[in-house]
């Protein structure tokens, strides 16, 4: 991460615009135990009250990191039931990083956010159909499988 990802200008700009960056050693006490960290790098998206909303373990290149951070922002707002804010970040992820590994999860949660906003189940089914068409082997396609029947 230090050699490739963190020096990337896009990563630096995105992090400073959207987050307070905090870095601690893997054995920092009591944080490592509090967050049950067993391997590095572990990256966790926290709201300002310290609650966890998204986590990744292992190396991410610059594009994958920004996509994952957008997913984390989307999940943070989703968890706080701010579905329009969540959709802004999920849509940004899917427009700018559609090929990223975070995209299938973003499609899944975009459908859920739209459903939560409207109580119309159609976005859930549309999410499944997009996942099935573009990411047939993704775990998120399997998780959305029941929505095919809506």
């Amino acid at each position, binding site marked *: 991460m230090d050699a490739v990802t963190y020096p990337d200008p896009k990563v*630096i700009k995105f992090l400073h615009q959207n987050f*307070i*960056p905090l870095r601690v050693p893997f054995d920092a006490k009591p944080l*490592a135990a509090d967050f049950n960290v067993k391997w590095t790098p572990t*990256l*966790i998206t*926290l709201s300002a*009250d310290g609650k966890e909303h998204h986590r990744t373990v292992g190396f991410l290149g610059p594009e994958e990191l920004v996509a994952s951070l957008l997913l984390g922002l989307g999940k943070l707002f989703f968890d706080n039931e701010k579905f329009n804010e969540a959709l802004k970040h999920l849509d940004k992820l899917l427009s700018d990083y559609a090929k990223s590994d975070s995209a299938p999860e973003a499609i899944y949660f975009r459908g859920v956010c739209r459903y939560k906003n409207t109580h119309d189940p159609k976005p859930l089914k549309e999410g499944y159909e997009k996942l099935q068409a573009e990411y047939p082997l993704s775990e998120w396609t399997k998780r959305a499988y029941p929505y095919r029947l809506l």
Partner: protein
Amino acid sequence: METKINWESKFDKALARAKEEKKPVILDFFNPG
């Protein structure tokens, strides 16, 4: 424009900044080697 990531190193300070600046925190557990 920053040319490197200016990491906070203290959890409490990062949360205080997060509240003040209305941003979330990205917490990186790393291996200093």
